């Protein structure tokens, strides 16, 4: 069925721009550090700009927290823990979290625009995925706050104390929610450090925490760069570190934290999306697209390795390339945009570097013919075929809209290839045969396995990796463990 005797142009009906209004963001010109319930100037008075990656223009200036500022935040969190939060009943903590969830829903449109401006992701995703899921996380963990003794960790689980939380730039608000909601439900206080390039939605969240009347110091938000994060990791007053980000930084954090602090790490991945010959082919194509082009591929669990059974490889690739060419790349605020901007010039450089290796090592490159804007950081959706296991693009996390296609012949070979990675975060399995899907799922070394779907998230569903993708789970009952002394 590969004989193309007819060409029907997909997406021939052009869509006029349908931009969401940037003014909905209501951004301030400048933000301080959120310490002890209020925005305060950093000790050094040093500020840095957060850029819109789609235009390279500054959006707002944010404070650079020094180790002294981090210390202030940890002291505030400790005081809040000792004096207030540890004495607040679960029922009351729950109500604060429900309040926060509601406020996120009320300010959803604003948050979506802020996220899209600061991160570069399409407004469709920030509106339909990031923000609703962030609210859902608070809603879910709110309910746990007064039921911890039923969570399966013993009769009287105690909080850990002060949690230092370092989050990445790919889902800024959602990651803040993933960190804060279970920590607060379990009774901890928090010092949250947003990513350097995407601090703004966390600062809007700080406003929401104020609106919710969350007691001062229970959550402190310190913006800054790697030195800020390091100061948080090293601070002796922090009982627990939760980090989401790259495996390299995770390794450093684990080294520095040693076993003095509790630690959970959610790190990189090189997810295999395994397609069997009996899979529902049109849904497979969509699943591959969702797997690698969702959020520009800036997803730790991205399905960046497509493992397709040889008997259908040509057919899947043909349909995939047709679909890739149809992706609408451009203004992230446009409601019809499928793929937005790369988050930073540094990330763009890394994507370019690794993809150049793909060609050098002999893979066949297909790049979407989409036009890219002149300003901003952009990378056209790219697929590499004829990739072999040893290629860098099959082993290293690219964290961009780049897919490597490999083939396999038998289920055993598929599993072996999928597991042939230092990572183990997520995998996809596509087949109409349930018994084989479960056979494969049982053997994949991965924390999350999506069968006939990909990149689905839910507050009730534990997420996290094995091997060098980290340890600990976020989401669900399991997500409480990281924040309880059990």
């Amino acid at each position, binding site marked *: 069925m590969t004989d193309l005797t007819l060409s029907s142009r997909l997406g021939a009906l052009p869509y006029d721009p349908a931009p969401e209004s940037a003014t909905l963001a209501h951004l301030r010109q400048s933000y301080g550090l959120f310490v002890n319930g209020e925005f305060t100037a950093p000790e050094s008075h040093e500020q840095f700009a957060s850029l819109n990656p789609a235009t390279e223009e500054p959006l707002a200036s944010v404070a650079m927290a020094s180790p002294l500022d981090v210390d202030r935040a940890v002291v505030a969190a400790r005081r809040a823990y000792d004096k207030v939060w540890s004495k607040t009943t679960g029922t009351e903590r729950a109500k604060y979290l429900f309040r926060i969830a509601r406020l996120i829903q009320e300010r959803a449109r604003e948050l979506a625009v802020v996220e899209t401006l600061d991160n570069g992701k399409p407004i469709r995703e920030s509106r339909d995925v990031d923000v609703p899921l962030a609210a859902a996380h608070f809603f879910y963990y709110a309910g746990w706050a007064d039921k911890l003794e039923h969570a399966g960790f013993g009769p009287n689980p105690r909080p850990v104390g002060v949690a230092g939380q370092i989050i990445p730039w790919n889902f800024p608000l959602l990651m803040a929610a993933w960190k804060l909601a279970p920590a607060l439900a379990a009774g901890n206080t928090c010092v949250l450090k947003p990513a350097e390039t995407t601090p703004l939605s966390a600062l809007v969240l700080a406003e929401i925490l104020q609106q919710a009347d969350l007691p001062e110091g229970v959550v402190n938000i310190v913006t800054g760069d790697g030195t800020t994060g390091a100061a948080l990791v090293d601070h002796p007053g922090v009982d627990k570190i939760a980090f989401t980000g790259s495996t390299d930084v995770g390794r450093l954090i684990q*080294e*520095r934290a040693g076993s003095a602090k509790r630690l959970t790490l959610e*790190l990189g991945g090189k997810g295999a999306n395994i397609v069997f010959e009996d899979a529902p082919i049109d849904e497979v194509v969509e699943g591959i697209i969702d797997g690698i082009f969702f959020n520009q591929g800036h997803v730790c669990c991205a399905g960046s390795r497509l493992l397709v059974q040889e008997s259908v490889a040509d057919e899947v690739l043909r349909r995939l390339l047709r679909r890739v060419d149809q992706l609408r790349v451009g203004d992230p605020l446009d409601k019809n945009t499928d793929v937005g901007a790369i988050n930073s010039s540094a990330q763009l450089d890394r994507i370019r570097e690794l993809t150049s290796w793909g060609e050098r090592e002999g893979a066949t490159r297909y790049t979407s013919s989409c036009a890219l804007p002149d300003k901003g950081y952009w990378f056209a959706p790219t697929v590499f075929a004829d990739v072999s296991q040893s290629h860098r693009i099959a082993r290293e996390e690219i964290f961009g809209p780049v897919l490597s296609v490999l083939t396999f012949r038998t289920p055993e070979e598929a599993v072996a290839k999928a597991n042939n990675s230092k990572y183990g975060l997520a995998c996809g399995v596509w087949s109409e045969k349930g018994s084989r899907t*479960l056979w494969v799922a049982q053997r994949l070394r991965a*924390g999350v396995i999506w*069968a006939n779907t990909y990149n689905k998230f839910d507050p009730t569903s*534990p997420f996290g990796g094995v091997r060098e993708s980290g340890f600990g*789970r976020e989401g669900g*009952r399991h997500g409480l463990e990281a924040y309880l002394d*059990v």
Partner: protein
Amino acid sequence: MSERLDVKKTYKLLVNGAFPRSESGRSYPVMSAGGDFLANVAQGSRKDLRDAVVAARSAQSKWWAASAYNRGQVLYRWAEMAESRGAELAEHVRVAEGLAAKDARASVARAIDRLVWYAGWTDKVAQVLGGANPVAGPFFNFSLPAPSGVVAVVADQDSSLEGFVECVAAPICVGNAVVAIASERRPTPAITLAEMTVTSDLPAGVLNVVSGVTSELAPHLVVHEDVDGVDLTGAGAAGDDLARRAAASIKRVYRPRDDENPLRRLRSFVETSTVWHTIGQ
């Protein structure tokens, strides 16, 4: 007529179901708690650990592929073997730890009871640690525990049998394979118990025990890239440094705490694997 000359036992390593001497050819003298010479015990080397990790890696997938029921039976069989040689174990513990005979017997009894306890966990873990997740969408979503893989154990230095059982039975019962460094000063109870796995249907390589100098061996294990987790119970003051080194390959690290939750050790070497499947006609 002369007295019968007794047959002295050479204490060797347990690697892949076999009892090799250390490839290094070294041994070291082990003394009783009272300071008397007990035995020359094989002094394992870095290469012995390497062989043990290879054996453990290969055994782990088979062990995990066995049914949870079967794993429980095997561990229970191990407890049966220990019970039938309880007197021998008690004597080892008595001499090694310098206990009164009664206390040594009690310690062995507790150790065996812990083996039985863990034997019973094999087919409960999935139900207690796993479960269905009510996601907001047309998906059947369930989380199941899976073993981390190969777990390196620096066994308790003082509690020669009970401590050893705790350190190795917890990871093994949830499907891991273990490479354990026995107590340096008191290795014989652990080695003797480990010997019994060979008559308990525990597949070769699921438990490997290397005796030797902990400070020499442990650093190699915590940086071995094919080790997924480490239990640093017996690492003492070196534990902090070993924990830092384990970061190189993002290992799961277990260190004992006061006020221990009874399941923490078991949970430490379990990964939660969550499967989503579409629901549709």
